[in-house]
């Protein structure tokens, strides 16, 4: 387990964990080292990231959970990034959100966030304001959360007559496949071949 540099392992783990972060316990388990050692290690790493002027990210600690975040003084640059989107189209967050809603509607924000694994308020707002999705009802239960679905504009924009014209997902196709399998045909094939 200790063939690799501990610091590198921690960096890769924190990175992969994303917004969910990693708990002390998770780090202990993966690195198989004692709690005090992990605490000490994370403490010195935190300091190291914070001090290094070449680093744009640092380690944030919340209730024994560690995660990477961009340093505060990088905000200006990140803001510019938002203003210089990839290709004038929807952000990936927007695309993902739209795709989830198209295929899984009616769906609540929480369910979308569960699938995406990140907060999704803003992409939802953007999509509503573009008229691609709208509130189509309320969920049962305590919160009566908003249920989202796609709009007529959505169909128009993508040139669809109705939702059934959305491209099939792989699961649906695989289902069709197995149904078509038959060994009846092979019987007649065998017969044909034995005649030859």
């Amino acid at each position, binding site marked *: 387990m200790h063939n690799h540099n501990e610091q590198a392992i921690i960096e*890769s783990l924190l*990175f*992969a*964990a*994303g*917004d969910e972060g990693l708990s002390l316990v*998770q780090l202990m*388990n993966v690195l198989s080292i004692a709690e005090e050692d992990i605490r000490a290690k994370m403490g010195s790493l935190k300091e190291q990231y914070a001090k290094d002027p070449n680093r744009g990210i640092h380690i944030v600690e919340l209730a024994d959970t560690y995660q990477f*975040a*961009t340093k505060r003084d990088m*905000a200006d640059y*990140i803001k510019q*990034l*938002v*203003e210089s989107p990839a*290709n*004038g*189209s*929807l*952000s*990936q*967050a927007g*695309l*993902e959100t*739209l*795709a*989830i809603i*198209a295929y899984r509607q009616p769906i609540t924000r929480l369910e979308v966030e569960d*699938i*995406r*694994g*990140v*907060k999704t*308020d*803003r*992409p939802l707002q*953007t999509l509503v*304001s*573009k*008229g*691609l999705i709208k509130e189509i009802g309320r969920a049962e239960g305590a919160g009566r959360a908003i249920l989202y679905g796609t709009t007529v*504009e959505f169909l128009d*924009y*993508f040139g*669809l007559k109705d939702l059934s014209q*959305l*491209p099939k*997902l792989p699961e649906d196709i695989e289902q069709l496949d197995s149904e*078509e*399998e*038959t*060994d009846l*045909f*092979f019987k007649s*094939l*065998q017969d*044909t*071949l*034995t005649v*030859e």
Partner: protein
Amino acid sequence: MEYSVKVEAFEGPLDLLLHLIQGLEIDIYDIPMAEISEQYMLYIRAMKVMELNLASEYLVMAATLLAIKSRMLLPKHEENWENEEIDFEEADPRDELVERLIEYRKYKQAAIELKEKEEDRGSYYTKPPIDLSEYESAKQESLEDLNLDLHDLLGAFHKLLRRKKLQKPMATRVTRQEISIEKRMAEILIDLKNKKQPQRFHELFPVAEKPHMIVSFLAVLELMKRKEVSVQQDQNFSDILVEAVEGVTLVAQP
């Protein structure tokens, strides 16, 4: 000769032929038609399950092989091949088949390399973009500026599905402390003896974890059955009191 062949093992007649050519160590540029035809027939007969939409292609190839075989047995027109060697090469009945096999083999190889790339891609992890909504301005382009199509949607969806699986934390793998009923029985009995007075039933469940609670409950039942503890309840819904029976010592279990 016994074969157990699944049609799924081959990606069609060309794939099967390549398999035979390799297995029989045949020169792809000089395929012995009689041998390959015979082997081919053996194989497709051995195929147990045939998908409806694939079977016809195997049959067409069978017919093609037989046709080439018979054409090669036909006497050749002497004046044609004696004087024009180039024509002779083009006239080899196997040419078209060889060409197809070589072309197909190229992509079969490429598919293997793609598979390696696919696996390699699986060995590194990326992360979702961070939520930048706080920086987003209210300004929105019109729909026409979006320049999207359904494939963008599908692409995003699948990228997301792949990522989700990577990002989802493993179901909490708390290394479960395996506790045996015997051990828990001993603990409870020692506890009751030490306290020297009846304990309330709920006090026998100090750990609020399902497995531990179940084991504790079973332990109490077993102790009752063995008459090592006595249990009483004054009235409905009042506390159940558990007490160690005097003089009882738990027999050590192996």
